[in-house]
């Protein structure tokens, strides 16, 4: 060990030794209050701050939970007795489809985003996450898509193909708009989920408080980071699959039609490539709440922090190797089944590790009784049973027997309710004081928990038995004398007991609490930063952004709360009246930038409405209004980018307090916007890779894919197209360099790039066009068309970006110093060039070698 290896003796930056004078602090607080004020009246709905958007998100997702729960009760009433006639067979199909879809897409995923949007800035001592308007846009997309989907069941038009929508049932045999509502409505919501994921990843990596090194961040943030990264890679397969199925339904391209070369198994692959990671995307953020709650009530730091990080990351990876265990019965080779069975059992290892860490923490500490802990213990008990039945059905021979029976229904509810719903209820009780400074009732809480825990087990345990006795899923009734009546009746009784428990929680949450006094600050004596919040909460999030030295700063840093309140840390004021937060480095959270955040605006709402118009008009095959909505949405988003981003600051550097000066405007890899785009493009690339996977999937299963003689233009034109697009990409890089030297050739370089790119897109389309490929005849032309259209559409968006940059440069908005737009457009073009090259290699190159 040399001297140079040893840390230098300089100390952590402490808070100001003495508070500022009273009148200064008063002025600072007034500035912050004015800047972060929640808008009043109808303008309330233009709010973009995490506290408002998070609250709407939470309220909406719990509303959908109750809606899905009512549907479940209807199903249980229908199944309570043999040959019952509460619901018709068709309505029963709609009911279970909407129940499953609502619980997965409109409750489980959004409630994760709701909790994260709400809590993460508080845990990180940030005033907000880096893209508040994007979060608001995501919320409005979600609520619009959700209402559209749920509303359909009142018009007898809801989807009825099960929550996994298998074709050909959903492509050929269900002509109504139900399946279209599902495919388009959820694609829309998935885009919103990806938007939230971008926000959460950048937030977790770049918006931590100074000094919160990577080994000190709250476990909740680790879990959120892993789940958000999983969304990036899990949702695009479903978006790609939904696109294929909707194109088949709307335009008769035969992706899943075996008579014209398609294969319904491709849907199953794409769906479960999403669907299985999805289970863990739901599970990890919920168990993250447990990881925050257990240390608080055990009154000690978590046992095995590194092991939990291992478990979160390990589960995130392994969960992508399980998808085929939903497809054991489709007839894959034994070795493939064995491979997926192995991964399915391996994932039990990291899952188990987390539970041992929680139990270890409870044993090592002194656990105090509380309602959140009741839910945590209930969750662990239920989830362990669900996990064990999961290991049973991970084994292919057992699954052959249990597949599509009520055993699976029992298993999945043990996993999801034990692994997600109970921890979420624990989180509701635990974090409720942060919402309005009031506590939920302990007395009601005990009753609600008892009803839910008993009701849940009474409802779902008998399902394992009825499944083993042969009761299939998704039948609307069953004949008497099969030995199923008693078990089903017990399940129904249990379901109503569970529902009464949930109803009690809902009543407790919404009952007026005007007379109830505000709770004290940090009522649970927790150690993490979100509990510095004042009761009732102030709109500014945190009075000043502290320096963090510990995993549990409220336990370990003396006077932390006082120093934050007295503004002795960073950013204690808002002199310019602009919303600000700190951007820090990924590993050690070194302060790098004072990030200006956008304020309240109706733009996210109207942009979501117009984006929704595209999907909703599309459902009814009203193509003109759909196209018009898309154009309006693109226009609005461009306007949003023009007015909302890349503003020139009034000064280059700002004094953020404690003697630190930070830049306000940064571009390229130093800026959060660049990272946000990079992450979005990774998701986009994943969707494209799924389409390419489809191409090779057809190649493995069909002998006539690609056909023996491919028409010549299909080989030449894509090659020309790719060459032009690569040229456009090179010109973009040149433009960025020219701009850095303030060269007046910049615009010309971008415009030539745009022209070359447009030519490239036309060349891509020309291939199958001149080759006379008819996408309705066979899956091969359909796949080729889809790939070239995908590439051309990306070029079209890239050209819009280029024109944006040209206008921005002419207007003096983009200069050599302020070049964010050009950096981001170039980043987009890296991905577009890659997409074009892969498309050409697959479409033109592969038939030649195959």
């Amino acid at each position: 060990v040399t001297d140079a290896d040893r840390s230098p003796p300089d100390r952590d930056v402490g808070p100001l030794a003495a508070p500022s004078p009273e009148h200064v602090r008063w002025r600072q607080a007034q500035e912050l209050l004015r800047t972060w004020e929640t808008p009043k009246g109808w303008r309330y709905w233009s709010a973009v701050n995490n506290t408002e958007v998070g609250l709407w998100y939470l309220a909406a997702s719990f509303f959908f939970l109750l809606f899905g729960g009512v549907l479940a009760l209807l199903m249980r009433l229908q199944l309570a007795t043999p040959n019952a006639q509460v619901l018709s067979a068709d309505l029963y199909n709609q009911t279970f489809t909407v129940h499953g879809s609502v619980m997965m897409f409109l409750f489980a995923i959004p409630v994760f985003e709701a909790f994260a949007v709400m809590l993460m800035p508080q845990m990180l001592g940030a005033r907000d996450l880096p893209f508040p308007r994007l979060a608001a846009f995501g919320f409005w997309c979600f609520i619009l898509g959700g209402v559209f989907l749920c509303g359909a069941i009142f018009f007898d038009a809801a989807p009825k193909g099960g929550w996994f929508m298998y074709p050909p049932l959903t492509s050929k045999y269900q002509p109504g708009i139900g399946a279209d509502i599902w495919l388009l409505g959820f694609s829309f919501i998935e885009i919103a989920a990806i938007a939230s994921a971008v926000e959460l990843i950048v937030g977790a990596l770049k918006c931590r408080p100074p000094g919160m090194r990577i080994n000190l961040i709250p476990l909740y943030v680790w879990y959120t980071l892993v789940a958000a990264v999983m969304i990036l890679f899990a949702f695009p397969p479903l978006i790609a699959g939904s696109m294929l199925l909707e194109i088949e339904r709307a335009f008769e391209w035969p992706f899943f039609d075996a008579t014209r070369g398609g294969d319904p198994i491709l849907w199953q692959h794409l769906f479960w490539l999403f669907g299985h990671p999805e289970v863990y995307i739901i599970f990890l953020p919920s168990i993250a709440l447990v990881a925050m709650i257990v240390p608080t009530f055990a009154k000690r730091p978590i046992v095995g922090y590194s092991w939990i990080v291992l478990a979160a990351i390990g589960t995130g990876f392994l969960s992508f190797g399980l998808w085929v265990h939903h497809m054991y019965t489709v007839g894959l080779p034994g070795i493939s089944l064995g491979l997926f069975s192995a991964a399915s059992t391996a994932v039990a290892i990291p899952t188990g590790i987390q539970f041992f860490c929680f139990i270890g923490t409870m044993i090592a500490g002194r656990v105090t009784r509380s309602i959140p802990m009741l839910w945590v213990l209930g969750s662990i008990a239920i989830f362990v049973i669900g996990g064990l039945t999961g290991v049973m059905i991970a084994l292919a021979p057992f699954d052959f027997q249990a597949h599509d029976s009520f055993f699976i229904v029992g298993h999945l509810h043990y996993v999801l309710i034990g692994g997600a719903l109970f921890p979420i209820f624990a989180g509701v009780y635990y974090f409720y004081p942060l919402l309005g400074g009031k506590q939920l009732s302990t007395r009601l809480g005990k009753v609600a928990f008892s009803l839910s825990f008993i009701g849940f087990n009474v409802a779902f345990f008998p399902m394992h038995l009825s499944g083993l006795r042969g009761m299939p899923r998704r039948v609307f009734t069953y004949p008497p004398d099969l030995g199923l009546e008693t078990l089903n009746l017990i399940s129904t009784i249990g379901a109503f007991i569970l529902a009464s428990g949930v109803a009690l929680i809902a009543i407790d949450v919404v009952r007026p609490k005007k007379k109830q006094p505000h709770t004290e600050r940090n009522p649970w004596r927790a150690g993490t930063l979100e509990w510095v919040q004042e009761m009732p909460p102030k709109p500014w999030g945190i009075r000043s952004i502290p320096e963090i030295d510990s995993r549990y700063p409220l336990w370990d840093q003396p006077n932390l709360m006082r120093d934050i309140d007295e503004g002795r840390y960073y950013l204690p004021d808002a002199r310019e009246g602009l919303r600000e937060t700190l951007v820090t480095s990924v590993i050690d959270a070194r302060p790098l930038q004072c990030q200006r955040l956008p304020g309240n605006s109706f733009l996210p709402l109207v942009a979501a409405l117009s984006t929704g118009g595209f999907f909703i008009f599309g459902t009814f095959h009203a193509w003109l209004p759909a196209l018009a909505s898309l154009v309006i949405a693109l226009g609005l988003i461009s306007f949003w980018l023009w007015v909302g981003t890349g503003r020139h600051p009034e000064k280059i550097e700002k004094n953020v307090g404690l003697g630190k000066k930070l830049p306000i405007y940064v571009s390229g890899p130093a800026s959060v916007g660049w990272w946000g785009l990079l992450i979005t493009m990774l998701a986009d690339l994943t969707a494209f890779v799924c389409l390419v996977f489809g191409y090779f999937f057809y190649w493995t299963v069909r002998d006539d894919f690609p056909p023996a003689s491919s028409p010549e233009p299909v080989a030449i034109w894509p090659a020309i197209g790719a060459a032009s697009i690569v040229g456009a990409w090179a010109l973009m890089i040149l433009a960025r360099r020219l701009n850095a030297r303030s060269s007046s050739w910049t615009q010309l370089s971008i415009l030539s790039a745009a022209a070359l790119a447009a030519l490239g897109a036309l060349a891509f389309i020309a291939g199958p066009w001149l080759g006379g490929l008819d996408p309705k005849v066979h899956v091969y032309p359909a796949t080729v068309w889809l790939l070239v259209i995908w590439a051309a559409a990306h070029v079209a968006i890239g050209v819009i970006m280029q024109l944006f940059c040209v206008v921005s440069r002419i207007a003096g908005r983009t200069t050599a110093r302020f070049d964010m737009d050009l950096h981001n457009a170039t980043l987009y073009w890296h991905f577009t060039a890659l997409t074009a090259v892969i498309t050409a290699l697959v479409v033109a190159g592969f038939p030649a070698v195959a």
Partner: protein
Amino acid sequence: MRYASARGLREERDGLWALAAAPTIWAAHFLLCYATAAVWCAKIARDDGSLFEVRLAIAAYTALALTAIGLIGWRGFVKHRRRGGERPHDADSPEDRHRFLGFATSLLSGLSAIATIFSALPAAFIGSCS
């Protein structure tokens, strides 16, 4: 604050990518095993064909993957053991951040190695495409 400074412990030299390296090798191994078996059974050996060549290939992939995972795990372990390395690595210092990342890397390598062996096991027992 002692953010930076000491050579070898500078923030820039520690990255999050090391955490993802071993599980990524597991994923690549997994996909290769799956694709090799699927293409072999669909295009070359056909139904009930022998898996002999596939089993050899999987053995080779597994040996390579385990070697790489082992190296990553060892590097992580060395980082973790740097001057003592008592857990829980929760001090506010570049050393503990460095040790934490090393420890987490070696744990993830262990998990990836187990999962890789799991993935290879079916090939040890299954001899045909049926």
